[in-house]
């Protein structure tokens, strides 16, 4: 019975869940909200573009971004794809460092943010 529960957990973790959910399921809702709010306040999408983009980045233990955030899955046409990706990268860089619980560093050491314009 115990093995079955663990098995279910591993499968769920391997294949992930719905967007917006922490795969590690280790951050509390309040911690997740703080992270989202931290990025959101710097998300200034270009007024001339609409679309989606994902930014992936690593954080050090002090909440600073390590290296250059990587963008992928840009859903906008033409030249505006670069602008949307640049705006998303800028949002991640501008709002660092991110205040997250030090004891859960292993959970938030890598972050994917799905940015979308309204």
């Amino acid at each position: 019975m115990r093995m079955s529960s663990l098995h279910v957990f591993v499968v769920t973790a391997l294949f992930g869940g719905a967007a917006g959910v922490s795969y590690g399921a280790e951050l509390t809702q309040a911690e997740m909200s703080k992270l989202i709010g931290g990025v959101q306040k710097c998300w200034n999408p270009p007024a001339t573009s609409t679309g989606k983009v994902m930014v992936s980045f690593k954080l050090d233990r002090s909440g600073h971004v390590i290296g250059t955030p990587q963008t992928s899955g840009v859903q906008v046409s033409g030249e505006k794809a670069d602008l949307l990706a640049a705006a998303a990268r800028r949002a991640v860089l501008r709002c660092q460092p991110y205040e997250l619980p030090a004891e859960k560093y292993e959970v938030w050491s890598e972050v994917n943010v799905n940015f979308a314009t309204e």
Partner: protein
Amino acid sequence: MKLKLRTLITALFVALSSLAFATLTTRAEVVVDVTKGNVEPLPIAITDFLAGGDLGAKISGVVAADLKRSGLFAPIDQGAFIEKISNPDVSPRFEDWKVINAQALVTGRVTQEGDGRLRAEYRLWDTFAGSQLDGQQFYANPDNWRRIAHIIADAIYERLTGEKGYFDTRIVFVSESGPKDKRIKKLAIMDQDGAGVRTLTNGKDLVLTPRFSPNKQEVTYMSFDGDKPAIYLLQLETGQREKVGDFPGITIAPRFSPDGQKVVMSLLQDDGSANLYTMDLRSRAVTRLTQSAAIDTGASYSPDGAQIVFESDRGGKQQLYVMSAGGSEPNRISFGDGSYSTPVWSPRGDLIAFTKQSGGQFSIGVMKTDGSGERILTTGFHNEGPTWAPNGRVLAFFSQPAGAEPKLYSIDLTGYNSQPIPTPQAASDPAWSPILE
């Protein structure tokens, strides 16, 4: 034996599961969705261009004013700058610009060439990425330093928004002065920011509805030939004026076709009706487009030249209709309360701007070309005559509050960022030029 094997398998599975869990823990990712953005003007630092005199500061001042007026940029007060740019050819200290939240940085230099021309060069930097986004240089006669500034502002706007700029453009309009019973109306032209106003006519004859040629420095407008209104072409460089055709009736509301080869206009007839005609400017051939007992006027071509939108009271009240450029298949597209007039097709082709009169007020609005998606951008006592900037994002119009003089305004397609366009006197009937060559 069977029990031992089961124990072994169980132990192995637990070990593998623990390993998988440990791996997952160390590789854990947090995935979040951020959909609520803050669509705010982009903070941008625009440094004075290096120059011998004050020209560098004047150029950067015009660039900053252009970008600010667009509503998409917020130039940062130069008093906040930490780094003083002494060599625009080397990378700036990005940290100094990030501290003041400059998300983009403009540096530049102006020098005079041996032949007397100005050489202006600029670099656009992404401060958070720590990289150069763009860099260009332009040459011009020193008298044209404002145009150089507008061209640089256009380049920055295009690089940071992905859309064409509209700063190196002009607006022709009707400059008004004097009492109502002796009103003087002169044709005038200025840069889109209100600089460099000059009059094109002397005010002796009334002028109305000026419209720019899409590809020449030429304007068509209505004026009076004695007591009779007629349509004219005016070459802006030479001042040469020419009457468009010699019609038996009164012609009004001219507008060029997108290729600049034709003018569409409305001809008033003795029975009180008005129909649309085109004149080919080369052959002078005249073609009648509508056969109506109503008043058809205010025609404007789609950018591909295939269709025309116009206003007509054929249904009892002024409404907007779209038909083929040859005049066939007119379809009513406006159905809201009130009456619609002065339609103008967007340079992007997707929208039609109009004046709407309803409930004793005048509004400027836009709708899709099939009439759906109507949006009112601004409403007032008397707002009228929208004209599109060549990038299709901004509109100009004139507004006259009760008991006041008419003035020109611009407004973003979103309905935000309404800004007065300064003119020395009262002004109406603006028409935006294409990007200057």
